[in-house]
């Protein structure tokens, strides 16, 4: 053990002297800090944008109060009044932005049919969303392995190529101890960097201290260990530095770039989703046919769903708001099963990726980080369900006014239901990710140890 510590301390001196390596670590630290800065400012910007929405609703209400000074038909208000369903980020989203820039963070809703409002997208710059986010998760998943590769590709080969290994192995040390000390030293440095960045990120984002803190740290640690395992395997293979560098970068390319993009193609082909556009076309057809159908037919279908309004007066006039909103709702009803199939199809795509991510620890880590941040597809689907429930509650608020012919007064604006939704971390996904990563780490480290045992380390 004493030999191990001697070697360890010499590695430290060696490291301090190697300007290139210190520079690389500094570079990673800088990119990590930028990632944290970008993630937190991006989430802060989203929070600020969401905070302006009540002001827009307020302006809308003020305008309506001028337009309709006295008590008025609730149908008019339902038509002109808009509110927002809002998707607030969890503080963890700042560390892993996921799809929060691709999917809209709010939905503008009126009392009209839900499904031609629910899928509206926000203004986004496609060049930016294509390029992706520079958040802490990106630094940990993409760049940290590259640092590990840079630190480890010439672990023994450099010493061999410089002729030092012969001298070293002539001393009374076991080659495995040399290798162990070198790896442990580098693992120490990288782990310290990862923990430091994670700590800074958590403090900056102001995350609550709960089970997710150790989960994030465990995830980063296991992911680093996996890459050290790969480095161990390649080192035990004992080739020239250039070959090691190519091999390690090849593994990185396969696991971080090729497998994910091929998997993405495979999943899209294996789980085709019924196009969302089909359901909006169908809904439009249903709603507009409502104008051309006899009113009693529409109302009877509607009363089948809402028998409590059956005893209301028969519509004899050319236009009545309660008839209008009845066929809006029937339009939604006509596509309800399609809408469910669409959401389920998306969820199934996500689930299939989660099942198949065992092929690449990078995908495991990225999905788990996003699950922790509540910033992936399931969070958005949960938000959409929540927005749909909000739309239900709006209808429940307006229907009595419409069907009992009670006028809408200025005081009613304040009684209208409000919506708020904050994404939740998907802890089951995180736990599954942790156990899968643990499995990968064990497998790759075991392979490394076997290789080190089998192939004795040679000085030449």
């Amino acid at each position, binding site marked *: 053990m004493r030999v191990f510590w001697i070697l360890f301390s010499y590695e430290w001196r060696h490291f301090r002297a190697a300007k290139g390596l210190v520079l690389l670590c500094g570079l990673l630290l800088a*990119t990590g800090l930028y990632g944290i800065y*970008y993630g937190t*400012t991006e989430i802060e*910007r989203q929070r600020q*944008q969401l905070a*302006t929405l009540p002001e*827009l609703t307020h302006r809308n209400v003020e*305008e309506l109060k001028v337009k309709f000074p006295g008590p008025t038909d609730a149908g008019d208000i339902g038509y002109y009044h808009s509110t927002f369903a809002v998707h607030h980020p969890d503080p963890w989203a700042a560390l892993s932005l*996921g*799809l929060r820039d*691709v*999917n809209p963070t709010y939905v*503008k809703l009126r009392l009209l049919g839900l499904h*031609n409002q629910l899928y*509206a*997208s*926000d*203004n*986004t*710059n*496609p*060049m*930016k*969303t*294509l*390029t992706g986010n*520079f958040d802490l998760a990106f630094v940990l998943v993409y*760049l940290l392995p590259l640092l590990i590769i840079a630190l480890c*590709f010439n672990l023994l080969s450099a010493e061999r190529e410089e002729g030092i290994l012969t001298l070293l192995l002539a001393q009374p040390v076991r080659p495995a101890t040399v290798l162990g000390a070198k790896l442990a030293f580098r693992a120490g440095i990288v782990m310290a960097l990862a923990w430091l960045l994670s700590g800074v990120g958590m403090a900056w984002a102001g995350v609550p201290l709960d089970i997710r803190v150790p989960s994030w740290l465990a995830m980063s640690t296991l992911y680093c260990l996996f890459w050290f395992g790969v480095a161990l395997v390649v080192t035990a293979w004992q080739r020239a*530095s*250039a070959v090691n560098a*190519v091999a390690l*970068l090849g593994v990185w*390319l396969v696991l*971080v*770039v090729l497998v*994910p*993009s*091929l*998997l*993405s193609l495979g*999943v*899209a082909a294996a789980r085709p*989703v019924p*196009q*969302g*556009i*089909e359901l909006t*076309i169908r809904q439009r057809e249903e709603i*507009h046919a409502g*104008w051309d159908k006899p009113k009693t037919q529409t109302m009877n279908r509607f009363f089948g769903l809402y028998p409590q309004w059956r005893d209301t007066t028969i519509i004899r006039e050319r236009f009545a708001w309660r008839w209008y909103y009845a066929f809006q709702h029937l339009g939604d009803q006509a596509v309800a099963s399609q809408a469910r199939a669409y959401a389920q199809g*998306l969820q199934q*795509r*996500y689930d299939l990726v989660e099942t198949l991510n065992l092929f690449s620890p990078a995908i495991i880590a*990225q*999905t788990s980080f*996003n699950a922790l941040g509540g*910033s*992936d*597809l399931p969070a958005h689907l949960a938000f959409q369900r929540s927005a749909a429930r909000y739309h239900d509650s709006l209808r429940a608020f307006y229907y009595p006014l419409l069907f009992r012919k009670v006028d809408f007064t200025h005081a009613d604006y304040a009684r209208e239901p409000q919506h708020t939704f904050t994404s939740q971390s998907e802890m089951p996904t995180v736990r599954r990710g942790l156990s899968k990563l643990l499995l990968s780490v064990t497998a790759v480290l075991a392979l490394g140890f076997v290789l080190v045992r089998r192939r004795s380390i040679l000085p030449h």
Partner: protein
Amino acid sequence: MKSIAQKEFISTLRDRRFVVLSALVLALLLTATLVGRASFRTLQRERQLAQTTVNDQFRNQPARHPHRVAHYGSFAFRPRSGLSLLDAGVDSFTGSAVYLEAHQQNSVNFSQAQQSGSLIRFGEMTVAFVLQLLVPLLIIFLCFGAFTQERETGTLQLLLAQGTTLRQVAWGKIRGYCQAVALVVAPALALAAALLFTGEEFASNTDLLARLVLFGLSYAVYFFLFVVGSVVVSARQASSRAALVTLLGLWILGGIILPKATANLGASLYPTITKAQMDAEVHEEAQHGVNGHDPHDQRAAAIKAALLKKYGVDSEEKLPVSVAGVQMAAGEAYSARVYQQHFAALNATYEQQNRLSDWAGLLNPYQAIRPLSMGLAGSDFTHYVHFQQAAEAYRYGLVQRLNGLQASMGYGDKERRLDAHTWRELPVFAYRAPNLHWALPHLFLPVAALLLWAMVLSWLGLRLISKTSIA
């Protein structure tokens, strides 16, 4: 020089590692082409079918009031460009369908990215992806030892002793490597071209052919840059290991870190206004006038007064036109103008955000080839905006024709409907993607950046080589 080129070419082909790697790259290119074509066809079919469906629905409407038809509206689906099967560009991150209706301009919805999990953030396996990132990596593996190996084995001195100059050696090597790279990439591109032009939809399309030729040429320049750059680095570095590490470091910096950093920085510097905020502002200006002194109600009243005066009558009933129809047309013209200003401002913001990345193309060839490639493929942001504008032009034209029909119905139009055959005479949405001539001016910067790189590297790089030490 020729014999050096030949030597490099042959010894490359004999190198097993290179053969395996290039077989891998070739396989990926072929997979990407085939998969690209399959997904292209599915999407194209889906969108064409949807467009035909909504067009038929529009034509076969029953007797309706024209303003009801304006609210019924239509959809515009964005057809994918032919070459987008090689480079999908921003297509997966832009919406595919926009609902066209009276009074408002809707967002383009249902992007591919919104229909998949965050896995799509790892990047898509397209031909462009292989060509932009993986082939350069192959070139680096091929060329990093160009000079260092000769130096390490001492053959460089022998070569120079025969009277050749360093510059000649370098050019010979560059030529040899270029041949080897062409051998890997050309078959895949030829196959892609064959696949493209055997599909009946593209037969005898000269614009597409011209785009494909320029596409191939740009990548030829791009690969040439990497070959020359790698040879230069190899000449300037002391050992093969140092050369390889330097080149890989540059690849990571240029291919992974810089594009993301510049895109994110651009977005932080020029924040985007939300759709909700923008719509509220548009509504405000359309209601109260752009300057706040020209409210909608006053404008409507002025129109009515002008109509009464024009026809010399004293009440609305005696007018030959429907006042509501004329007011509607004027309102639409006003709000469309307001929308246009706001969309122009939004697109200007996007352009400001992207400009940082475009200028970074001068420092980083990857950020030059990327916009150039998608621009030629017709899948970049400019082409997307062209579609948006075409959809809006159609929407505006349609709504105004319907408003015209309403106006011509005269007083009491609300009680009446127009015959079903009226809707058959209105045009349906048919999108024609812009041609190369339209696209080229937008691609000036990336083209200039690539050519500049090629010239600077061939001139300065080779000068550096001839000054390099031999031993």
